[in-house]
């Protein structure tokens, strides 16, 4: 079976940002996402209301160049003021085309 390597981008972000980040991901070319709930602590430790709930763990499988753009975008628009971290990994999938534009 032929496997393709694509990028898995994982974003940990405060819950208030859900709509915004998903919107941006779509704009940048991601064709799907998966969200789980998480909580955590980091160095900034700023957090919005507990009512808004905990952190989100957003994952999206994308082509490498899109992964780069996503990291870039997050670094510019979210890292300064919000509790957001992000990282990418290489993963193997069966149908690479599903995750590419």
């Amino acid at each position, binding site marked *: 079976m032929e496997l393709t390597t694509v990028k898995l981008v994982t974003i940990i972000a405060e819950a208030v940002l859900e709509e915004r980040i998903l919107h941006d991901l779509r704009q940048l070319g991601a064709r799907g996402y998966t969200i789980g709930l998480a909580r955590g602590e980091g160095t900034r430790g700023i957090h*919005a209301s507990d009512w808004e709930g905990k952190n989100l763990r957003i994952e999206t499988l994308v082509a490498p160049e899109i992964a780069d753009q996503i990291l870039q975008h997050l670094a510019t628009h979210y890292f300064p003021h919000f509790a957001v971290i992000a990282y990418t990994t290489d993963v193997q999938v069966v149908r690479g085309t599903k995750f590419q534009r």
Partner: protein
Amino acid sequence: MAIVELLQINLLSPMVLAFALGIAATLLRSDLKLPDELYTTLSIYLLLAIGLKGGIALAETSLAVFWAPALATLMLGIIIPVVAYTVARRIGKLSIADAAALAAHYGSVSAVTFAASQTFLDTVGARYEGFMPALVAILEVPAIVIALMIAQMAGGQQGGDWREAVRELLTSKSILLLVGGMVIGWLAGPRGGKEVAPLFVDLFKGALTFFLLELGMVAARRFRDLPTAGWFLLGFAIIMPVINGLLGVWFGSLAGLSLGGSTILGVLAASASYIAAPAAVRIALPQANPGFYLTAALGITFPFNLALGLPLYYTLATWIVR
């Protein structure tokens, strides 16, 4: 009743004691943790129940009686954020964003403090107008919008889109449940209300007690940030509510509200939002420090109002309202 007696009644009520238990649990580093979903469920329940009861009462209220209190409330929603912003900026020397954030929180309202004040008045036997929840809804939004506009004009806003924030505010869950509940209550009337009363009326005080257990834990977690918050914030979070409370009681009496009603308007004015405002501010003023506004609203003002504020504003009302 003397204020000492009122204080005792209040401090020994199950809801205040449950709040204290929540604080104790956190300070003792207990592993007690209420599920997040329970917290959300209780919030939704409380907002909906408050709205429902208000709506049913509103159905039986004539506009002639309602317009003056509504106007008074709206004016509070404009005056308080301006005052709070000025104090935070001039005296506290806070940044534009931080000052505006505080203004949004103290101008808006805490639904749980409102609910607690009703329970308190029930216990001391003071009556109040049934339409008070409508005033909660009126007071919730304007102050937040005004605070965001101030920040915008003062140039303290970057990155956040305040128009988008206002749209989100108007459809935010707290507004939707409060106003939605009110519409349901208003349309369904007393007959429909009776059907759901076992859930939304009879269980209300118990649910509030349960919720305050959780809120005690949330507030206590905020205590950690107290040292970094500084003396100004501590003073602000205690003196501002008292001033606002006095203002609210006074406006209430001018608008013709009863003793109980004026007390509640005082409580509304004195309370600081911890649901609608934090969410809106986080989005529209991301550079404001939640360690400031949440610690003030939830870590200081909320416990203060719950424990001491309720009897205090009631006592003020007995002096002011004839």
